[in-house]
């Protein structure tokens, strides 16, 4: 009986111990993450600000692969603008196929990734504003510091909304007080976007960091938004006039790089030409996600003898290449360049002889496009079909501007992933030539044709600097480059209509494959966009590889925007409705 008591006492003692530690035992704090309260310091806000800027490349491992949403817009701006086709082979990334044939539906996954990426960026800005306000209320930062965070957050927020506006126009606008469950896309958000962007005009020139927005950058962004959204050229003109005398975000001077080809060298990513470059970093422990992951597909396919080794995407169109034809050093503004197409090596074996086109060409062609027998950075002459993944599908050309030099492999390319196409070649989001051309555009639209011509001629003069041309190993020019400035009088700066044509051609030649083309066409009006795209399509379809790529495709007025992703319409439970025309 005594033993029995011992057991019972023991049992109840055990149960008593168990009962006593109940509540605390079930409270387990989260590990490895931060509570919001820990961020309410200057350091915390700095990091949230970096987080908001980090979306400017359009790439985060949270979404897709990067190529759907990258800031360089090679799909949405360039392929859609007929500067290039998808490249690679027919079945690779098939979601791009309908985008390049203007048959994309609202269920296209590329659209959804782009949308999600943009609005994650907006959400980070709003979060920063909210926490900045809390930190200020707690007295942990000064009013001046708070203003700086909030101005930057709003400027970024304006930019991200503007990127969305160019894609879809009928977008919801979100600020830090918006209820995401109720917001609709039924209001005109242009003034809200402009108001946000204009906050940036209060920023200083020297932000102490090349990767932040400063006053000059903000001036350009506001001007771009005014032009794109409101055709407000008069409003944009003074901003751009001021911007060309501005500085980079680190306070350094901006201007034209004397040599066109140098602009795209990774070394010069933050060079004099760069007003704002999206900063890419390699081997930074991100697993290449910060290393231009969005452009990783766009390298020639010949491994070992050409850069990247993957994946053969983004092959320029013949129509685009032809537009570099010059006559007496000037472009053929009546599109007659297609009557004298640039010779290519389609279907010609790599060991068969090939002589490149001997006609007059704008030297910028060979910094923009890789084509047979022309030296390709320091990789030697392009050898033709072996650089192309499937010439019968995507034609004979490769892209070039985003490509790294052989001597930069391993230093300015990331070594941590499956290809060396991850580079530090930050996307030149705003370069000086672009600002000059935007300014020239405003001048044309406001009737100052002379100044417009002068600005365009600055750019042509730079392109005409033969030190900046692609050279053969023996120092001779790689092709028959002939480029001149527009004459001081007469055609094409004789009428506003002609000047427009010249400006528009100059943007195509100067900024080709840099992601602007489709959005430029959009700015120039739906009629112009439809005509121009159909003209290019009709020509490209006559190429031996054109049928498989474009067979029967035409563009219509609805193609001036993209459909809002169906997934987002569904998830909004009726608050967001489809774009007009889709």
């Amino acid at each position, binding site marked *: 009986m005594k033993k029995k008591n011992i057991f019972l006492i023991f049992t109840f003692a055990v149960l008593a111990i168990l009962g006593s530690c109940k509540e605390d035992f079930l409270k387990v704090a989260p590990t490895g993450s931060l509570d919001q309260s820990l961020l309410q310091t200057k350091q915390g806000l700095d990091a949230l600000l970096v987080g908001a800027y980090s979306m400017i490349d359009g790439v985060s491992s949270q979404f897709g692969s990067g190529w759907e949403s990258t800031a360089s817009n090679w799909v949405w701006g360039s392929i859609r603008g007929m500067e290039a086709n998808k490249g690679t082979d027919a079945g690779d990334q098939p979601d791009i196929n309908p985008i390049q044939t203007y*048959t994309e539906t609202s269920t296209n996954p590329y659209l959804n990734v782009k949308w999600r990426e943009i609005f994650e960026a907006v959400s980070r800005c709003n979060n920063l504003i909210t926490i900045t306000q809390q930190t200020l209320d707690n007295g942990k930062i000064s009013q001046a510091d708070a203003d700086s965070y909030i101005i930057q957050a709003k400027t970024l927020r304006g930019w991200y909304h503007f990127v969305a506006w160019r894609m879809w126009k009928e977008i919801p606008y979100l600020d830090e007080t918006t209820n995401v469950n109720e917001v609709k896309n039924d209001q005109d958000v242009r003034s809200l976007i402009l108001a946000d962007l204009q906050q940036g005009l209060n920023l200083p020139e020297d932000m102490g960091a090349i990767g932040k927005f400063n006053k000059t950058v903000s001036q350009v962004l506001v001007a771009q938004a005014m032009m794109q959204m409101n055709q407000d050229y008069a409003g944009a003109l003074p901003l751009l006039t001021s911007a060309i005398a501005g500085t980079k975000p680190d306070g350094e001077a901006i201007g034209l790089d004397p040599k066109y080809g140098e602009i795209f060298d990774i070394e010069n990513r933050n060079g004099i030409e760069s007003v704002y470059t999206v900063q890419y970093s390699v081997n930074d422990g991100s697993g290449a996600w910060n290393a231009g992951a969005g452009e990783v597909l766009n390298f020639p396919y010949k491994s070992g003898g050409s850069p990247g080794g993957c994946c053969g995407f983004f092959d320029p169109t013949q129509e685009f290449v032809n537009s570099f034809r010059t006559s007496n050093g000037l472009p053929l503004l009546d599109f007659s360049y297609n009557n004298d197409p640039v010779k290519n090596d389609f279907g010609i074996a790599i060991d068969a002889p090939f002589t490149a086109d001997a006609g007059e060409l704008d030297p910028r062609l060979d910094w923009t496009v890789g084509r047979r027998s022309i030296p390709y950075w320091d990789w030697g002459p392009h050898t033709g079909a072996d650089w192309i993944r499937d010439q019968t599908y995507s034609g004979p050309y490769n892209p070039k501007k985003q490509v790294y030099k052989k001597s930069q492999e391993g230093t300015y390319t990331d070594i941590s992933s499956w290809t060396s196409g991850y580079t530090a070649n930050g996307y030149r989001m705003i370069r000086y030539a672009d600002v000059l051309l935007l300014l020239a555009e405003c001048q044309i639209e406001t009737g100052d044709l002379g100044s417009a011509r002068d600005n365009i001629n600055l750019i042509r003069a730079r392109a005409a600097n033969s030190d900046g041309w692609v050279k053969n190993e023996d120092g001779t020019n790689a092709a028959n480059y002939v480029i001149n400035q527009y004459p001081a009088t007469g055609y094409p700066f004789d009428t506003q209509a002609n000047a427009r044509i010249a400006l528009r051609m100059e943007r195509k030649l100067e900024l080709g494959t840099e992601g602007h083309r489709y959005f430029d066409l959009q700015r120039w009006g739906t009629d112009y966009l439809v005509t121009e795209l159909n003209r290019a399509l009709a020509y490209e379809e006559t190429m031996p590889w054109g049928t498989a790529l474009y067979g029967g495709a035409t563009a219509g007025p609805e193609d001036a925007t993209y459909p809002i992703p169906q997934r987002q319409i569904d998830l909004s439970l009726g608050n967001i409705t489809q774009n007009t025309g889709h």
Partner: protein
Amino acid sequence: MQIFTNVRRFALLILSMVLSTGFLLAQEKTITGTVTAEGEGPLPGVNVTVQGTTTGAITDVNGTYKITVPGPDAVLVFSSIGYQNQSVTVGSQTAINVVMKTEVTGLSEVVVTGYTTQRRRDLTGSVGVVQPAELTAVPTGNVSSALQGRASGVTVLGNGQPGAEAKVRIRGFSSFQDNDPLYIVDGVPTQDINSLNPQDIQSLSVLKDAGAASIYGSRASNGVIIITTKSGSKGVSVSYNVYTGWQDPGKGPTNLLNTQEYADLTWLVNKNDNVPFYNPDGTQVINPIYGWIGNATPTLPSWAGNTNWYKAITRVASITNHDVSMSAGNDNSKFYAGFGARMQDGIVIYTYQNRYTGRINSEFTFLGGRVKIGENITGTYTTSQSNGVSNLGEGSPIQMGTYRGQPIIPVKWTGPDFQGLSHLFTAGDWGGTGIVAQLGNASNEVADLTRAKDNFFWNLRLVGSTYLDAKLMQGLNFRSTIGGTFFSQFTQGYTFITYENSENTGANSLRIRTDYGSDWVWSNTLTLNKTFGQHKILAVAGYEADEYGIRRGTDGTRGNYFTDDPNYRTLDNGATINALGSYYDTPTTLLSQFLRADYSFMDKYMLSATVRRDGSSRFGSAYRYGIFPSFSAAWRVSDEAFFQGVTFINDLKIRGSWGTMGNQLAVSPQNQFYSYGGSASTSFYAVNGQFSASNQGFRPTRIGNPDAKWETNVTTDIGFEATVLNNKIGIKLDWYQKKTKDLLFNPELPGIAGAATRPYINIAAMNNKGLDGELSYKDQWGDLGFDGSVVLTTYKNNIDKIANGVTFFDQSGGTTRIGTANRNMVGHPMSAFFGYQVIGLFQSDAEVASSPTQDGAEPGFFKYADLDGDGAITPADRTFIGDPNPKFTYGFNLSFTYKNFDLSTFLYGSQGNDIFNWNRWWVDFWPSFQGQKSTDLLYNSWTPDNPNTTVPKASNTSNFSTNTQVTSYYIEDGSYLRMRTLELGYTLPEATTNKVNIKSLRVYLQAVNLFTITKYSGLDPELGGDDRAFGSDTGNYPLVKNWIIGLSLNF
């Protein structure tokens, strides 16, 4: 009660006296002896009777008996519940000692259930029992795949990867997130049973319904599998089992092209696509491999190989398994030790898994038998090399090697030096897609696997518990168990620079990942086991504390190694840091009280009630606790008076249960918290323009939901169990319905809400209905013995709700190139296939013109059904095109014994499941990358001259009407019947083995996976995958034929 017994004894005494009087002077004699139970010592209460008479005796507390028999011909029958009957002919003996063997089947079997054991005849819940021998019948080496077809209601999908854990689902699905059953090994909950050596298992029970499982409350929802490992028995015994054999990869796919056929197909595609054979200037259009594209019989280059890539990456692989077990015991202690070594090579070259297990179980009884203290511990050391060979997945060597490598590519370069695209190929180099253009982008998998042969993984896992069991008073026991798991693992992977591919790796790198983790449980129970006359009560009350998911680790990659020498592979030897991180998981704590009471009256009427209250740290304070009750009842109809006339039914019991079970696995322990964080890949930015560094940035990482609570499923089960025809036939049938409410789901938030991790909320609902059936038959005809059983499993899953305004979500099952093939939608089962219905191929331009508008339509391409009749093929025309859930699955177990021979076979089948054959996307469409293609595409595809076919035109067009959509073209019937094992054994006669002091010696030959009957065209129809997107064949690691020879030896 006592009076009744005494009266009965008295009556028996009188009766036996009367009956025996007549023989009193004959050869009547008295026999004495001791009855012991195998491994347990003296067995009291055994009935000893003289066959054909009513003479009987019962063994006393020391297991001894005394009985008078009529003569030497008399046969004594020893019987006791839970043991096999034994018969002994008296002969000249006067002392007969008998060792009783535990009955392994039948009603008197003891079944381990939640926190207790019960006789099978007393069960009120639905419990499946798998015999230890069944767990080792197929030499898979792991418990999960051995469960296939052995217990009704359990669906198991395995694969052929060495040591691969199979997917185990009990009665369908009850969660979108996690449907793994809870495993309890010797009282320790675990989610890893792969490291357990099946040889060490004594018993395995599957608790299926709420009546059986809800004592595990919040973790019971997916069913509970209770495993008890072997314990020592009295005396000393040692056994050794060994088998060795070969796994034969077989032929692989038979529908792929050889090199010349591939060249012919290239010509066919150009012809079909009207690619001009001449350039505008009259020169020939050249294909980089075959020259002029107009050549109808393309000529092959001199370097052309004719590689069968499946053959090249596979081999006949060996498998060897040793198990030694030792058992010893006396009245006060029991001891068991088991050691196993299992070495299995994969059929893919350079892959293997070696597993070494050791177990020590012991128990000590003291204080006059009142207190027992014991422990169970097992250690498993596993080392393996999977080499990127996952079961399913693009890029795994099975997928890439088999379906993506062009046959023309030689495995190794043998010819003269050749300036390839990527490299100067010299004899002995690896061949690859870098030789010339248009060889595609598949890696040379033989090269990759060979280079990676020094990669490895090891894992050390300890699982154990120690317990104290004290008898507080007669029928009342207190038991306290402390147990847990500890593991540590290490993975090393080295990536090589490659030169032979079209897409090469430019830098070498080393990744090392190491972590440790643990969990523990402390449970305390009071068990009351009392019989009052015809009333029997078994009650358990318990209190349990649990912590699991404790884990930390580091993961680092550095690159640019000076040399690839395996001895140089340390992280610090890499020149650059590619990635460096660590993780620190948030553990989960659980605190529980539970109570179960079983009551039976006259062994006929049984009632049981269970309630468990769980508190979990995964939920916010408002919903931290959940209460899970269940009730069950059973009625032994066959014991009723009115049933006595029904002689062919020996036993019939009807059962029913109702109860609730919970699940919390769906939510992260962090689900209730809002949190911020950041990583280089999501929120860092080189704001200062650094080339190779970036500034730290933060973002919202998780949106918290403090109001999440338990998933609850309500299960109803009705069943019966019967034995008929002299106990030869056993039948068991259960109907069940399992409804999950408050199902945790993380609905996708609108993009404008940002991309922080979405919270789980209790919003969805689903249900499962089905039948579980088991039928067994056992007989003996002279020397021929037969034992057979059929196990049937069915479930019908239906999603009832997903979220407000959300009727479906799509999930990718690896069919990444054309969007998701699986849609989980209200009114449909989990993982159903969703896409366009192909109704044929367009035959003419006229047909295209007269059909509903369809992007890319042209003769020879797919024609889709216009289901909404709006005259255009739009996303609204997509429909459910298949269902990977089987109508039923079944297992057949047949075994025969004849004298010393035994022959057994086990077949498993699945009926009515569809497969999404993703491999067809790669091989039946020319533009689906330049990889291997099918003979269908070459010989059977649409041309104007071959219009009656289902295979579309061979064309380089990739559009809506060819290969960019999910369509019914890929759906195949995945039903199959597979002979899992066929085994022939021979046991040496005892007379022979006894001479050398061997108790028994058996040798056997075994064929595993001897045949599979299926219409499915891929490598293997048995496909697992994510529950929300399974049944897609994205490069399955097939189960292949094994040939095994084995020996078991007992001392």
